[in-house]
């Protein structure tokens, strides 16, 4: 076998050389670009040219602190690197002048610093000790925000393809055993043992086998896979190649939703570069192992994240789930044995091979080993990407990493697992995050989206939102899911509109049970979870809607009455002019009033009122 030693030494030297030069790096993951990173990049290029600075300009992917994007890192030789947040084009000149020309960081813009061997600056959080990162581990996400994702050299210099080399030097069964020992479980949410899955495919009879990567991330509020694909595409390729070698496949396919154009572009680049270096393709590292990877862009149907629907979609058929068994391990893509894993599962594999299963099992709980990447969204202060060891509590994730609730609000619930998951209340905050405990609490691990809600969120409305999602995304094949979600959604609409009756709760119960028990695929079997969990933990809120015709969170428009507080109203007339329904009347400088019959509850008056004189209840 040819090893990569010479290439790695060369890459490491180049990488060292790069790090020793003054550098300014812009975060250009999708989050960075969406918040204006590309314009910042342009501004930096212009400013550097205008000032005639000798500094390299580079880009990286999302470091995790999406709430501080656009982020820019400035790194000078012999000094700590400083990562700045909220750097918009108008700040670029000052940043370059202060930090690059005068060697003084702009302290108030700094988010974190990464000192390396240099002396840290006073007054800037060191990354590992910063509140956002203190409780995190960074293995799958270790390269995110740190390396250039389009450089295979940097991947190799930072230990990339070492896992592959190691695997190719092992017996195929030994590779599978190592993954089994690591305790890695499906990161797409199912939590099935990855090693066992590989074993099934290895054992399956067939002259042709496939390794398929499920990159059809579709849960509302989930972007882990996108971040990993954009930030470390080679890790996915390496994970798939190791799987391919272990199970005896020579072809791989990444099913990535077309809404992730940047991920697809970086994957294509990664594939081309790996092929160029002979790491991917025929006779890899002279071992006789062949492996090719292609990308299939999905058209964005949520159900195609279900493994058998995904396979149908790759084959050019309508994305509808197949019945299992046969499982894909025995009859998958083109009816051949197929190993189907999620992005994050594959991304973990190179690290497990390189560092050994013992390293991996040192993190996590009894049954859930290693780390898990989560997306923090909703009413939290710090929205972004984090990687935590399994077994961390929800409280630590929400209050330490995510920095608690926005605007000093009160935590109400956290939704995990997307439309298949559930809403967990305050009483479950000390729940340790692992597959079993989340399921027992009525939610599920899912792919890793955490949507945090505060007291302004109506839980019936949340259930309605998710049911609307699953109803729209139901493939229509099986009756319980197609028709059942429709009826449940209608009931939830009725409840939110104040038309609910107490029997509706029994109907929801019955439908939930039947659909869970009789639907065809995972999407249908779990679609009732948002209803089941909100009815379990927030039943009083359902009762308030049905019995008192009141929405405690003040969300459900039909149940709200807008009233003017006569004492606060100055009669300025702003609300009167804003009201599209002409429901507000009143003389100038006299308290106004709202006609509830004419009011369409749009909320325009509240937004316009400068005196907080209008309230809804």
């Amino acid at each position: 076998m040819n090893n990569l030693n010479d290439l790695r030494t060369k890459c490491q030297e180049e990488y060292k050389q790069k790090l020793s030069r003054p550098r300014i790096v812009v975060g250009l993951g999708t989050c960075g670009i969406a918040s204006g990173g590309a314009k910042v990049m342009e501004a930096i290029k212009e400013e550097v040219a205008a000032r005639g600075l000798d500094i390299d300009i580079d880009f990286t992917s999302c470091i995790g602190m999406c709430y501080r994007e656009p982020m820019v890192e400035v790194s000078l030789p012999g000094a700590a690197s400083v990562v700045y947040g909220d750097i918009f084009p108008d700040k670029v000149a000052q940043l370059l002048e202060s930090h690059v020309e005068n060697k003084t960081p702009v302290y108030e813009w700094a988010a974190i610093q990464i000192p390396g061997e240099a002396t840290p600056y006073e007054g800037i959080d060191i990354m590992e000790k910063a509140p956002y990162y203190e409780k995190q581990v960074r293995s799958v996400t270790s390269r995110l925000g740190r390396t250039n994702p389009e450089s295979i050299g940097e991947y190799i210099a930072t230990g990339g393809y070492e896992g592959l080399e190691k695997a190719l030097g092992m017996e195929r069964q030994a590779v599978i055993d190592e993954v089994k020992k690591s305790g890695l479980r499906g990161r797409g949410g199912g939590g099935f043992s990855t090693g066992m899955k590989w074993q099934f495919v290895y054992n399956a009879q067939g002259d042709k086998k496939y390794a398929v990567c499920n990159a059809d991330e579709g849960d509302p509020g989930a972007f882990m896979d996108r971040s990993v694909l954009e930030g470390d595409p080679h890790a996915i390729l390496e994970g798939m190649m190791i799987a391919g070698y272990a199970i005896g496949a020579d072809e791989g396919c990444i099913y990535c939703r077309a809404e992730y154009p940047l991920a697809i572009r970086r994957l294509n680049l990664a594939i081309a570069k790996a092929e160029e270096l002979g790491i991917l393709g025929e006779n890899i590292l002279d071992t006789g192992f062949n492996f090719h990877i292609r990308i299939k862009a999905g058209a964005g149907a949520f159900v195609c994240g279900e493994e058998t629907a995904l396979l149908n979609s790759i084959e050019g058929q309508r994305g509808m789930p197949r019945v299992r068994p046969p499982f894909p391990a025995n009859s998958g893509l083109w009816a051949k044995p197929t190993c189907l894993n999620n992005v994050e599962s594959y991304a973990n594999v190179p690290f497990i091979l390189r560092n050994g299963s013992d390293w991996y099992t040192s993190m996590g709980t009894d049954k859930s080993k290693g780390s898990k990447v989560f997306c923090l969204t909703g009413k939290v202060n710090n929205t972004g990407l984090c990687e935590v060891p399994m077994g961390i509590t929800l409280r630590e994730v929400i209050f330490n990493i995510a920095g608690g609730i926005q605007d000093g609000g009160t935590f109400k619930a956290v939704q995990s697992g997307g439309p298949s998951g559930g809403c967990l209340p305050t009483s479950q905050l000390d729940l340790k995050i692992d597959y079993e405990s989340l399921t027992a609490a009525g939610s599920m691990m899912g792919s890793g989206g955490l949507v945090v809600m505060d007291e302004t969120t109506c839980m019936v409305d949340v259930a309605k939102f998710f049911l609307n999602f699953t109803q729209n995304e139901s493939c229509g094949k099986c009756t319980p899911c197609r028709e059942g979600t429709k009826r449940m959604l209608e009931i939830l609409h009725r409840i939110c509109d104040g038309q609910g009756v107490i029997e509706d709760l029994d109907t929801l119960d019955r439908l939930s049970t039947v659909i869970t028990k009789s639907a065809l695929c995972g999407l249908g079997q779990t679609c009732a979870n948002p209803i089941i969990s909100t009815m379990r933990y927030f039943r009083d809120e359902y009762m308030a809607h049905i019995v008192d015709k009141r929405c405690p969170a003040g969300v459900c428009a039909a149940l709200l009455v807008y009233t003017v507080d006569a004492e606060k109203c100055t009669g300025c007339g702003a609300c009167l002019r804003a009201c599209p329904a002409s429901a507000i009347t009143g003389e100038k400088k006299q308290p106004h009033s709202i006609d509830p019959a004419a009011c369409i509850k749009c909320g325009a008056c509240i937004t316009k009122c400068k005196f907080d004189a209008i309230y809804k209840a």
Partner: protein
Amino acid sequence: MANVTLTINSEQVTVPAGTKVLDAAREAGFFIPTFCHDPEAPGYGGCRICVVNIKGARSLMASCVTEATNGMVVETESPDVVEARKTILELLLANHPTDCLTCDKNGDCKLQDYAYRYGVGSSGFGGEKHSYPVDNSNPYITRDLNKCILCGRCVRTCAQVEDRQVIDFAYRGFQTRVAPAMDTNLAESACVSCARCVAVCPVGALTYTNLSGKGRTYEIAKKQVTCSFCDAGCQFDLNYKGDKVIGVTAKAPGEGRPLCLKGRLGMELRYSDQPLTPMLKKDNEFVEVSWPEALELEDVLAKLKELEK
């Protein structure tokens, strides 16, 4: 092949390995309802009406796609199974016209039969129902999607005809429906009116236009004939009302490329006492034409007439 022995409703049943639970149960005389199951195109498992309780399984299992295994303990009418079936029927009826009084399928409809058996009179759900226009663009097949339960049998049977596959599922969620390419009507599609789809439709969504309003299913006696146009040997039913054949309907496809248009219409012409007038598609619309024109014999007939003179 080896046999497996399982327990169905406390009864020991031995079947060849590979047999599905549905077939094993039916073989042993137990009733299991099915909508989407088609012995000619098995393995779909979509309608879920055939779910049974299998001891140790996480959820109810669709018996039409679950293989019988040794020691399996199956209950075909346990309370949770009955509850699921009733709910599924209720869900289907919630989105169904329930116009059985005027439906041509009345008396020969699986939805009606199962609703009767499980005592589901009407749906308590209320809510939105589809209101698609009825597609009667095709002179032979009436397609009423409001009655469709999306079992997909028509889709699968159509896919079995080489070079056809005229219809498939379109849209998602509640909007899912069976449609020809570009969601046109049957006349504008590549449909050749072989009526395989009508033969397998378990409800009144696909019916024979020429039989519409001609008689209730119980007034019609059927006599089986075999088409002799080719060696496939497809079977057809002659539909007698009294001593008159009012129509010929496809019974089951034979081997090979079965149930073709030629056979279907040829049998109609041969046996029916009220054969249809021939129709030809002209400018994308079906128009009535004479037999000579339909058979492209106009030239020949003209020459014969010349000779007669």
